[in-house]
């Protein structure tokens, strides 16, 4: 059984898809069987969303429209869950990294 899904989400987290959010993002991606990829533009380049090295290499700052696509079992669920994580600002408190 094969499925494919794709969606976009705006990164509103203060410094973007950075260290801590990347850990959460890749951990969540790995819970799905589907192949999941991210990109900063519709035409790629695409990065493996289960590899933190690749996700960090995408260097997505605040204000980036993140493209997420998945293929395989549970592709829809994977994209939906990851989009929601980004929309929730990776469940971080605002100002968490801003120790003065």
């Amino acid at each position: 059984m094969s499925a494919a899904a794709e969606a976009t989400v705006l990164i509103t987290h203060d410094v973007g898809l950075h260290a801590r959010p990347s850990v959460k993002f890749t951990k969540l991606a790995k819970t799905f069987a589907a192949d999941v990829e991210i990109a900063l533009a519709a035409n790629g380049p695409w990065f493996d969303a289960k590899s933190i090295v690749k996700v960090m290499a995408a260097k997505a700052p605040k204000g980036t429209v993140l493209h997420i696509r998945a293929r395989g079992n549970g592709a829809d669920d994977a994209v939906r869950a990851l989009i929601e994580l980004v929309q929730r600002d990776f469940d971080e408190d605002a100002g968490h990294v801003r120790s003065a």
Partner: protein
Amino acid sequence: MRLARFFAGPQGMRAMRIEGVPASAGYAEGPLFDLDRSPAVYAGKATATEEKTSLQAAIGTAVSRLAAMAETADSDAAGILEFHIAMLEDNALSGPAFASIASGQTADAAWREALDAEIAGYEASDQDYFRARATDLRDIRDQVLRALTEDVDSTAPTGAILCGEDIAPTRFLETDWSHGGGIALKAGSTASHVAMLARSRGVPMVVGLREPLGDLAGMALLDAEHGSIVLAPSPAEIGAFRLSSASFVARQGVARRFLARPAVTKAGTAVRVQVNIADPSDVDGIDIATCDGVGLMRTEFLFGKNLPDEETQYRAYRKVLEWAGEKPVTIRTVDAGGDKPVPGFTVEEGNPFLGLRGIRLSLARLDIFRVQIRALLRAAPHGTLKVMFPMIAMADEYERAAALFAEEQAALAARGVAHRMPPLGIMVEVPSVAIAPEAFAGVAFFSIGSNDLTQYVMAAARDNAAVAHLNSVRHPAVLRLIGSVTAFGRENGIPVSLCGDAGGDPASIPSLLKAGLRDLSVAPAQLAMAKAAISDVPV
């Protein structure tokens, strides 16, 4: 970029003061510890298979050490450690290393090359945040190298000041800070993970030391409130340092309550408190709600290694303007020369503080000045920009600089480039201006540069410790000039502020407010304490 100060210390040792950028305020007194001692050597294996096993084991060791550290870490620290673990466990990181082992490379060289390539990618980023992650990658690299060489890394003595090029986050976390200690780095960034951790734990830290530390023996005094380290200090310096340190601890406790509130004196008079910044990334650690804007943005940092192009300057100015929003940002045109040489721009002089510096140099090098003017005009629509000229001595200098702004504005308008003319003001730091301000009745604002004004009025170079006792903003001659400039401004509707070190010095704040000032600009780390000091002044 002040020069190191040399003078005779105890036992004929030469005391040496090196200035840097405060990354986490506080004071530390202790032995120096060299972070950059060369690591042990890796013993190569006979076969590629053994090399592969050896690297796998080292990565495993590094991960378990990190996991053990994470168990006792607080949430900020645990977040960083989890990031390191996730990176180490990702095959995408180690893949290239295993590939080169297969083609005959030793484990240590293969790992180093693979990680150095990754690090280079982060260093090339145009975003401060991602560039600062290069330090994390170096840490990850060195943890595995350490495990490979089984180097029993000697730990720093308790209360030591850790010195070196840069510091790894794990090194910070491994260190016991409960008995004091601090960090002094040649490189480093106020946006690094370690700087963040140091601020949240109150570990004093200075980055960007202007001079190499040289021989790291003996004890030192780290002043991370103002940004300096003194090596081989004299007994008098140690005494003065301990007083500053004790006063800092006391002030800090009281000050925290004041940070979020507007500054008001004991008599209920409102005082504006802005911040001084040197690098656009400085604003990343400041909550705009805690200050009234940027009273001084230096631009010399842009001219550090080579002359910056218009686009680089425009981006730097725009970043700070957008951060400040509706609050004003006062950018000072480049103040090179004096104690701040710039290769390819400043000239060598016998007496640089009295030579071709500040606006004098800009007017002598119009090619360079016009680039900065265009960048400022283009950045202006992105916020509330004000521009000021340093080292103005005569009205003619201001008029020529203002005419250049008008010329460049007309040229931008003719080309249809978005821009805006900002209010143009001057630094009041040359005594001629402070004594006869009436020649400047047409400028938009005055900003008193108390550091230079004091050194020129007292004829005492501010980078010479031998005359430091003369260099006081509270000398009646300096205060009288500040008072008369402030009065002149009030009578003529010219706003007057002060942006020298005195503005953030709790001991000087009462005198400055009594002289009539109601607008101070201070180092970000001094914001809370300055507000606290203001609240005690009965004016």
